[in-house]
Structures are given as C-alpha cells and as structure tokens.
C-alpha cells in the first residue's frame, strides 16, 4: 500500500488549491486514513444515512406531535421555575415570617385563593389517579 506515501502534488485533484490548502488537505487525509482503514468512517456514513431516513420519514403530523410535547415540557418547566423564583424573592423580602393570622389574611387576595384552589384540584387529580386499587388478576 503506497497510497499514504503518494504526495498531493502527484494527483490532479488539488491542483487548484493553494500551498496552504494542499497542506491542509494532506493533514486531513492523514487523519482520515486510519478511520477508512479501520472501517470507522463507515459508521459516520451509516449515521448520515439514518439522519437522511429520519428526515424523509418525518411528516407534518410527526412534527406537530413532537413540537406539542416540546412546548408543553418547556412551558411547564418555565412556568414552574418562574413561580418558584418569584415566590422565593417575595419571601426573602419579608422582614419576619407572617403570623398565622397574617397567613389567613393573605387568602383575602383572590389570586392567592385561585392558587390554593389550583393546588386543591391538583391534589384531587393525584387522588383520582390513585383511587382505583390494583389487585392481582
């Protein structure tokens, strides 16, 4: 095998390249050579083939379903993170924790009552999901 010892100047392909470009190409070929010899570059071609297959197989319906999941996941995490950060900031601004009566007074705020109702409905949903006991067949 004398392919690796063949200089770039001996081939026709790189004649349009600058000397620096020829040197770069030689270095690149030297790097790729063991990958070709060991069959490892085949995996990259296989991967490209799989990617091309996925692109060809993907249709509008698949994009729609994937993106719905993406948005719900990102939106949910974003909302939860925002609310936790804001609540944490509000607590940090308190000089003293509210008294029990102070906590009760907070429920006069309709937004607080909405939030508590949300939590109670969440609890109901969790309860419903666990309401049917599983028995052995």
């Amino acid at each position, binding site marked *: 095998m004398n392919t690796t010892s063949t200089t770039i100047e001996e081939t026709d392909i790189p004649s349009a390249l600058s000397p620096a470009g020829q040197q770069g190409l030689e270095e690149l070929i030297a790097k790729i050579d063991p990958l070709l010899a060991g069959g490892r570059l085949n995996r990259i071609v296989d991967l490209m083939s799989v990617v091309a297959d996925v692109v*060809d197989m993907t249709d509008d319906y698949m994009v729609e379903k994937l993106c719905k999941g993406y948005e719900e996941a990102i939106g949910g995490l974003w909302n939860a993170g925002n609310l936790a950060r804001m609540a944490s900031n509000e607590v940090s601004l308190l000089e003293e924790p509210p008294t029990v009566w102070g906590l009760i007074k907070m429920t006069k705020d309709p937004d607080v009552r909405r939030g508590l109702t949300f939590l109670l409905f969440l609890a109901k949903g969790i309860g419903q999901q666990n309401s049917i006991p599983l028995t052995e067949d």
Partner: protein
Amino acid sequence: MAKRILIIGGGIGGTMTANHLVTKLYPEVSSKNVEIVMLSNSPWHYYKPAFMYVAFNKFFKDELRRPQQSLLRPEIKFIVDEVEEFDFKAGKVRCASGKQVAYDYLVISTGCIPSPERIEGLKEAGDHFYQYQPARNLAKKLMTIEKGRIFVTVNFPKTPNVPHQCGIAPIETTLMLDDLLRKRGVRDNVEIVYTYPTVSQLLRNCLFMQKDTCEVLPTIFEQRNIKYERGFSLASVDPGKKIATSEEGKEADFDILMATPPIRAVDAVLNSGISQAENNEGWLPTNHETMEVYGLENVFVMGDTVDLPISKAGGSCHSQSPVIVNNIASLIRLGHLFDQYDGRVVAIAQMGLEDGMPLWYDYESEVQPTPPNKLGGLMRKGFNRGVYWSVARGLV
C-alpha cells in the same frame, strides 16, 4: 418609587422584550426598583405568521394562539386595555377604559393593520392572509377553485423605502399555492400570475425587494409554470367585473385576487402626531441603531411600527428586542445608551408546502438565496409548532 417600563403591544416584539427585561433587570425587578407593565388590547397572543397557513388549511385557530399571560414571566404586570392616546410630554398613555398609565420608559410595539380599504375595490374583491378571518375566507376559495386565474399582487406603503408586511410572504404563498393546486389535481386548469409593483423600496421593476432574490425568481417560477409580471402597482379593483387595474395602466382579470394589502400603524400611533410618514401610514421616525423614537426621550419603537427599510416581521423583532433591552438597562444603570441594531433579520422561508430556506440579512448585506429543501421545511414547521413559543418567552 419604582421606575416603570411600559410596553404597549402583546405581539411577538412586546412579549419577548418584556420577558427579556425581567431577566436583564432582575436585581432591580426583584428589589421592586423597576416595574414592568404590558398593555395589550387582547388577552390572547397570536402567532401571526401562521395566518398564512390558515389560508392553506394547515392551522386551526387554537393552534396559533396562547393566553398572553401564560407567555409572560410572573413579574410582569399584564393589563388588557387598548391604548387610545399617547401623552409623551406627561409620560403617560390613556386607555379605552379611561385608565391612565404613567411610564418612565416606553416601548411601542403595536404592529400594523392590513388596510385593503385603502385601494378602491380591494376590500370587496380581494383576499389576503394577514389576519385570521380573511385567511379562512381565502382558504374556502383555494380549496374549491377548479379552474380560472389567481392573480397575486403586492402593495408597498407609500412612505419611501418602507416594506410591506413580511417581505417573503408573497413568494411563500405563491409557491404554496402551486403545491396546493397540484395536490388537488387542478393545477393545469388554474393559472397563477405573480406580480410585483414598479417601485419596491429602492429597486425598480423587480420581482422582490432585494436584487439577488429577484434574479433567481424567474427560474423558480418557470420551473413551476407560474407566470410573473413586473411593474404592476395595484391602483383599483372592479369587484363586479373582477378586473384589477394598475397605476401603470394595465388591466388584469382574475377569479381570486390574492393581495398583500396596504398597511398602516394602529390608531393611537396614527393620532400621536409624531409620525412623518406619507399617506397617513403612521410609521414612527426611528433611530436605526438605538431604536429610539426621534424627538422623544426614553421612548423606543420596534417591529412593524418603525419607518426603517427592514422587514415588518417577527424575525426583525427578534434582533431589535435585545438592543432595546440593553439600551433601557444601560439608561437605568449607566445613564446612557450602549447598544446598536445592525438591521439583522432572521427567518426560515416556507418555499412551497414542504420545503424551507433559512435566510438572514442586515443593513450591509442582502439575502443570499440557497436551494430550499425538506430539512429547511421541517425547521420551519418545528418553529411554527413549538420553537416560536420559546422565542416569545425569551428563551431563544
């Protein structure tokens, strides 16, 4: 007393700016030294580019909108009310409810309004896809036409060097139309004629507002048997005879007139007295680098309402928004502005029903058209269905 940043408009520009302001100014926001307030005339946020897809039966209404509050960080105070009057001297706005909202810094992101009534007969006889209901009306016609002629016209604002809404949309929809009619099996019986006005910003007698794209369009159109005509500036439409007449003296008959209509700023901006735009279009005089409104202190403008030669599209807002956020933050923290907009616009054009073409340009360079492909199409569809909402939330 907290400094108040007031954002008018719950479209993509206002929404991403409000969210970005919270993160940029979080030390001031969390210590209650800065308050961010958004005023919008709707509790809903619409993904406006999807109206184009509605015309091709690709989107339901609930798929292209979200509750505005769900897209805003909780630190933002959101008020649903329509701004009727700006009082720049007093630093406040008056709303339709009678409520007055004061501000220290103002961001105007109120978009534009399609106004087909500005061309005689166009509202009665023409169709467009820049709002939900007109797009639905167009969809019904596109899904039922069996033979005839679909005539495409593009109408620029009369203000010199200001583009129409979403520069690439007429090409996108013309190619989508070709694909749709082929799918329906009626393409051979329906003639598509794409026209462009004599004056398109700084160009004359072209097919697009940028030269490089203009030069590749004839090949694309000829491959699809789409007829094209330069120098057709729509002057009037005869709804009875279904004839469109141009300022250049040409007449063309049609079965469907798919028009990019004239546009204008919202009433409150029109009536503000600040605009120097022609034809009562209302574009605000905008510093092309700082995005301030000329002649006003601490007032910024973005998106469709500017008088810049930049596409009136979300892809412009995406690059203008961080500049405005940085400039407001630097005004508050340092007392001066420090960021400049370079005219960058980023988008993925929908080139037919399947293919897409990513594109970008700025004040210095024009769009370099590349071959549209399915991967680009999937990127656009992924953006439509998911990534857009992350952009609105200021995550991308």
